[in-house]
């Protein structure tokens, strides 16, 4: 029988209702504010839908990262991660209701101008060939399927694990292990196609076979950073202070380093390099827009802030074992993960300008100073990196709701799967 450290608080207790209440108030408030800003005409409705999609993809990446983590632990019979798995389960559990948060995106598809392929211009040969896949009904059916798969997987793993807290039957572990393998395959397919459907088709001409993996590594990054921050926060409030040790932080740091920093850079580079080398116009255009104006600075920020800097900082074992440094790095990684999602979702391609110009310097020149024909707006105003309050309110709103629902899910449960058969291993292991 595993002896858990006594004199340790392993329940959220009265923290749960407080987080839930404030999360719901701030979340609904921020989303309500976003809708008001969107409807007031201060920003276009189109901008609201884009910003909402940005926030939604961001929180979705955290929850999907959590689901992947939970499945991975069962798939590999991992012992080290047992004490931190419950927090990941709490996050992954949000996938059971996140479909509600997807409704505004669907509204954006039908009402707004979010996805250009919904009404393609006449005689657009390229889109005509993609018609069978880029069909609104089919798109919606697929979305329902993705949420069904994620919801069921999350529900199964969370229920099964929390159920084990009651009776401690090791059969639950074996059952989850058996579901983990097919679950992982389902996860990989649904995640890849979901991100193709929701983000890649924002530019319907563009395609990249790396995109699903890119989003996967980004989501692993966001989730690992989030998990470390949550562990540190819980320990600050005097919970699970002894069960979660330096060893767990060290291993989570490795996970963040491997998936979120190095694998991310590897995939991002491969995607860029192949498109750069093949030099096919409808592929390169996606990167061309990200090399203009403010987007260029953002691309460089990602290269240095998502890869080079964190890589050097977290390469050695000592920063990963020093909680303060690791947590600070994670706050940065979570921010830069948001920048990454912003970089994926927000840029739009000025197709008319691309068709018109004949050289790259001319494109840069026109983008910086040119006026869009037939309007009084410059390219910079419409297509360049322009922050808007909506970007912030949407993501804050959705994150607060995630926080509230996570706290609610963990309210009546121990923060550690206290009857998991591998708990002893997790409490006692050492890193070498």
């Amino acid at each position, binding site marked *: 029988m595993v002896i858990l450290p006594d004199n340790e608080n392993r329940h959220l207790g009265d923290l749960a209702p407080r987080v839930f209440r404030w999360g719901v108030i701030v979340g609904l408030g921020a989303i309500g504010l976003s809708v008001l800003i969107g409807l007031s005409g201060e920003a276009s409705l189109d901008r609201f839908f884009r910003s909402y999609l940005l926030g939604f993809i961001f929180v979705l990446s955290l929850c999907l990262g959590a689901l992947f983590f939970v499945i991975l632990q069962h798939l590999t019979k991992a012992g080290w991660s047992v004490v931190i798995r419950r927090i990941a389960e709490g996050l992954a559990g949000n996938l059971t209701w996140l479909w509600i948060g997807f409704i505004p995106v669907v509204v954006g598809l039908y009402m707004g101008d979010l996805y250009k392929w919904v009404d393609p211009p006449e005689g657009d040969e390229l889109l005509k060939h993609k018609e069978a896949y880029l069909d609104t009904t089919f798109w919606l059916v697929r979305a329902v399927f993705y949420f069904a798969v994620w919801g069921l997987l999350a529900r199964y793993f969370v229920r099964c694990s929390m159920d084990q807290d009651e009776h401690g039957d090791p059969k639950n572990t074996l059952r989850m292990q058996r579901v983990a393998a097919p679950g992982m395959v389902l996860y990989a397919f649904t995640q890849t196609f979901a991100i193709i459907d929701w983000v890649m088709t924002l530019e319907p001409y563009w395609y990249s076979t790396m995109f699903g993996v890119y989003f996967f590594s980004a989501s692993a990054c966001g989730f690992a950073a989030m998990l470390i921050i949550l562990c540190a926060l819980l320990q600050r409030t005097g919970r699970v202070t002894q069960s979660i040790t330096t060893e767990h932080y060290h291993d989570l740091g490795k996970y963040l380093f491997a998936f979120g920093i190095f694998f991310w850079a590897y995939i991002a580079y491969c995607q*860029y390099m192949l498109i750069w080398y093949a030099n096919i116009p409808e592929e390169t255009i996606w990167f061309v827009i990200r090399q203009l104006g403010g987007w260029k600075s953002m691309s460089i920020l990602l290269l240095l802030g998502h890869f080079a800097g964190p890589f050097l900082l977290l390469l050695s074992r000592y920063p990963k074992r020093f909680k303060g440094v690791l947590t600070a790095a994670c706050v940065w990684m979570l921010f830069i993960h948001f920048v990454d999602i912003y970089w994926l979702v927000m840029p739009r391609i000025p197709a008319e300008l691309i068709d018109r110009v004949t050289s790259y310097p001319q494109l840069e020149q026109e983008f910086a100073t040119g006026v869009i024909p037939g309007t009084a707006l410059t390219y910079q105003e419409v297509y360049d990196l322009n922050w808007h309050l909506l970007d912030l309110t949407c993501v804050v709103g959705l994150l607060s709701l995630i926080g509230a629902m996570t706290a609610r899910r963990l309210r009546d449960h121990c923060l550690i799967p206290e009857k998991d058969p591998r708990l002893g291993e997790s409490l006692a292991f050492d890193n070498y």
Partner: protein
Amino acid sequence: MNEPAPKVAPMESPARKSAGAALVPGAGEQRLYGLLAEFETPGAILAAAVRVREAGYRWWDCHTPFFVHGLDKAMGIKPTILPVLVFLCGLTGATVGFVLQWFTNASSFDLWAGVWVRGYEFLISGKPVLSGSVYPIIMFELTVLFSAVGCVIFLLVLNNLPRLYHPCLKSRRFLRATDDRFFIVIEARDPCFYREKTETLLESLGALAVEPLEQ
């Protein structure tokens, strides 16, 4: 080969050395290498290692059939320098990868490498000859190659391997070090080593047997 100077100088007086040697039966022909103590469980050797370290010994080692968690800490082994060396290997690999590509694709230098070779600027499908977009591939591969090979080489060097002979190998009892027994060897050159005292210590730690090893 494997003799960093012991740090405790005052202990090492000639008198003590000879006193230690005099206790060895038949000293002169066969010098004593050390004492071998056999333990039955990982737990026993962990507890024993802590006590041996606390007794001040420096020239001693543990032999186990498998990796015993916590033994490094119990023995007080310092962290290895290997990661730093591997990092330097990786940097070397990245540099070599860059220079190799730059020389062959983007320079026009003559270089003596067995024969005279000349860098040549190849223009391929309009791509720049010196490009941050393609160079990282080879730089990455060479970083990995140099790190991996360097890691193995330095691992062997730091462990004084390959080593074809060790005094422990004479002991029949020691054969079980690869099977189900755990051993502590305290070497005679240790400044704290006195045959009787050390033997008593090892026996008091719960050793199944203590036997002398010849050089």
